[in-house]
């Protein structure tokens, strides 16, 4: 093959481009929360089954990411943060992304069902449907509440992990879901505050675009306050304990303080210091989620050693 005839293939995808289609960074959060949901459950799975469960939950999440990139390629091309994704960059064809998304969705759901149980598989199927259809195709371009309702898709993994282990849903699973669900809006609205032009140019009805920035600041505070009882309430269930409650109290105090600061700030003040408080709050929000689930894991570890757990209450 000569260089001339090879030129048409120069933009051809590498293996890594297909991996990028699955949003590996989002997948890492899904793997972590699903793993915690599975490990804190009162029923033990065989390690091979547990590994398979987490793997297929992650693949399901990745598949919905590919479907999201297929549908949102036009938006992604217009936003700086997403312009280098495989489809807008021209290395992966939209049809390929669709095929990969659909195929991996089917594989993940069927294999999770075979590896664990039908409830977990049904929850995974619903999560993929919710993210790809309800959020991506419908809510994202239609309502500024897109983040609030769409956050449910990201909140399902620990519940699926719990269901994979126990075959049922309980208060603990619902509260783990609620923790991520309530955490998502302040997390993304803080991001929207310091990447304002992107969403506006892409025509995504972010709250910052439709209702203004001061309303968004008030919403961040309101959702953060509503998040506090959910986070602390989880500590009073069978999977909580003193370590979780101590960690949660500290994290919530810091998070509420950060939200309060964001609410009090004027836009000119934020612009002057390059959105320092908003960026700090965004970073804190990542730590907030990781440390809450990390604390749940620590409590589970202590219970395995015969220490801590619900017996302390």
């Amino acid at each position, binding site marked *: 093959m000569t260089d001339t005839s*090879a030129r048409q293939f120069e933009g051809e*995808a590498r*293996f890594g481009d297909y991996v990028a289609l699955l949003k590996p960074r989002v997948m890492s959060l899904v793997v972590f929360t699903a793993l915690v949901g599975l490990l804190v459950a009162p029923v033990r799975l*065989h390690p091979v089954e547990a590994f398979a469960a987490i793997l297929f939950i992650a693949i399901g999440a990745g598949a919905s990411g590919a479907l999201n990139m297929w549908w949102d390629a036009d938006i992604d091309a217009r936003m700086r943060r997403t312009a280098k994704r495989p489809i807008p960059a021209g290395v992966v064809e939209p049809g390929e992304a669709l095929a990969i998304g659909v195929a991996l969705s089917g594989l993940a759901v069927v294999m999770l069902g*075979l590896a664990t149980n039908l409830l977990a598989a049904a929850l995974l199927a619903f999560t993929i449907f919710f993210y790809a259809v309800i959020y991506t195709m419908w809510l994202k371009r239609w309502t500024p509440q897109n983040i609030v309702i769409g956050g449910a898709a990201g909140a399902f993994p620990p519940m699926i992990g719990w269901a994979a282990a126990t075959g049922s849903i309980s208060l603990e699973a619902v509260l783990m879901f609620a923790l991520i669900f309530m955490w998502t809006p302040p997390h993304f609205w803080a991001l929207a505050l310091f990447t304002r032009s992107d969403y506006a140019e892409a025509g995504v009805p972010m709250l910052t675009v439709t209702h203004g920035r001061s309303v968004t600041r008030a919403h961040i505070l309101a959702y953060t306050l509503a998040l506090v009882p959910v986070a602390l309430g989880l500590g009073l269930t069978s999977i909580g304990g003193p370590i979780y409650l101590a960690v949660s109290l500290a994290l919530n105090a810091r998070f509420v303080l950060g939200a309060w600061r964001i609410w009090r700030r004027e836009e000119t003040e934020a612009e002057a210091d390059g959105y320092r408080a908003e960026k700090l709050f965004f970073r804190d929000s990542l730590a907030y989620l990781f440390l809450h689930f990390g604390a749940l894991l620590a409590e589970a570890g202590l219970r395995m050693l015969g220490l801590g757990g619900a017996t302390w209450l």
Partner: protein
Amino acid sequence: MALKVEHELHRRRRGRNVGLALLLAGFVVLVLALTVVKVQRVGFAPLQGYDHVVQPTLVPAAEGGRSLDPVTQGRGN
């Protein structure tokens, strides 16, 4: 004429093929491991019940201690 000219494109495609091969091999290993785990847990005997054929050896002994197993039936077993 030498036909073995390697273009950068070939290296890229080889990378993709090797990646896919490893994924498929990993999938095969995982399915095998899952099968072993599940069969070990349940044991082989109950699996015979899925043959759509009556398996007398699986039917619990009938009342009076008489088994439905044709081999032992009528021997008061």
